[in-house]
């Protein structure tokens, strides 16, 4: 039986600590020890991306990291994106454009899109699709997820999303 380790993390700006075994996965520690239940356990095999969190500026699948590997890291989850003033623009746009149906993949989708838009603030549709390739959705067919992310990017770049051709369907553009 391995000894427990003293794990220190910064989660959504708050410094926290716990004792855990090295073999515990980051997703389990977040959900079960810190009650951070935004990141979901979907496939648990690093395919689906429902467990995506931001770790020191990287989008990672928390089911495929031991919490021990995250020792000292700063983690942002979907819980950390909204401000007291309201939801993050990505959250608003997922609602506006109906970028979810059952919602299970949504925290991972939004957390990944948040990092994508920091690395590439004004992506093309193709770049959004490529950048979101690590997140699976079994409901939406992705169209509205892509629209939501493009709309959020347009707003974050000071444009009117409703007038942005990238956000419209081909029929609307015609």
């Amino acid at each position, binding site marked *: 039986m391995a000894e427990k380790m003293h794990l220190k993390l910064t989660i959504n700006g708050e410094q926290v600590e716990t004792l855990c075994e090295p073999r515990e*996965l980051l997703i389990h520690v977040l959900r079960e020890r810190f009650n951070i239940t935004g990141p979901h356990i979907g496939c648990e095999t690093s395919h689906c991306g429902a467990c995506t969190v931001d770790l020191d500026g*990287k989008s990672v*699948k928390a089911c495929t990291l031991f919490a021990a590997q995250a020792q000292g890291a700063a983690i942002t989850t979907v819980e950390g994106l909204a401000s007291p003033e309201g939801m993050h623009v990505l959250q608003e746009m997922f609602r506006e454009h109906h970028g979810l149906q059952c919602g299970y993949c949504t925290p991972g989708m939004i957390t990944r899109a948040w990092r994508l838009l920091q690395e590439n603030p004004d992506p093309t549709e193709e770049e959004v699709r490529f950048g979101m390739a690590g997140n699976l959705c079994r409901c939406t067919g992705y169209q509205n997820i892509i629209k939501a992310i493009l709309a959020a990017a347009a707003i974050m770049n000071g444009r009117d999303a409703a007038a942005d051709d990238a956000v419209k369907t081909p029929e609307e553009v015609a």
Partner: protein
Amino acid sequence: MIPPAFEYHRPTDIAGALGVIAEHGDEARVIAGGHSLIPMMKLRMVEIAHLIDLQDVADLKGISVGETIRIGAMVTQHDLINDEALAEAAPILREAALQIADPQVRYCGTVGGNVANGDPGNDMPGLMQCLDATFTLVGPEGSREVPAREFYEAAYTTTREDDEILTAISFAKPSSGYAYEKQKRKIGDYATAAAAVLIGKDAGKITSASIAMTNLSDIPIFSEAAGDALTGTDGTGEALDKAVAAMLADIDPTEDNRGPVEFKKHVAGVILRRAIARAVDRA
């Protein structure tokens, strides 16, 4: 899916990592990005008593670009893709790395892990055959260099000893046309077939050609005969047919859930033709 208990070590230098290996022998194993090893541990197909996390070993990081290019083993696919000097000097690496897994996996997955694991499905081993790269291994007896073309023995079996750590890859700056072409069932998948091609050209004739294939045998395949078939030609017509035939004679695919043998050979031919055409065009 939680693996058996293990002790976690996080050394800050290579000597520290080798020390843990020396103390615990084959009960110890290094972890790089962990995206091959952790799934195996979760499935309990691998049981490790002492896990040595290399993320704090600074000597394993960094990319240096000159006439020789050196990439530290702990450089992630994400770092590699975003290194502008590397993309300028050896763009085939970015082209290949962008076809590995998905963004989240590329933030974690490392070049060293990809080449050292010996998984026939990994893309970097084939690319390293094509580049004629050299791997640096460090163990208790010191450091040694192994050509990538002599590193792979069988699936998951390489010339690396259990008490050695692969610390870096290096290769001469490729001066030629390039292409990494990969056919896969879906984004993020391993290759049904993949081809790495480097072409040098002078006055419309191919002066050098290096061709390697991925996931079409239990090790990556460097097809010298395929490259030879292109040398001195313009890389089209009969020469292209001969190169593809030579490659097909060198691979040995097996039937699995990516398809039967005949299908894999068909795909291998198609992607090699595409890769050669693109590399010749860029040369």
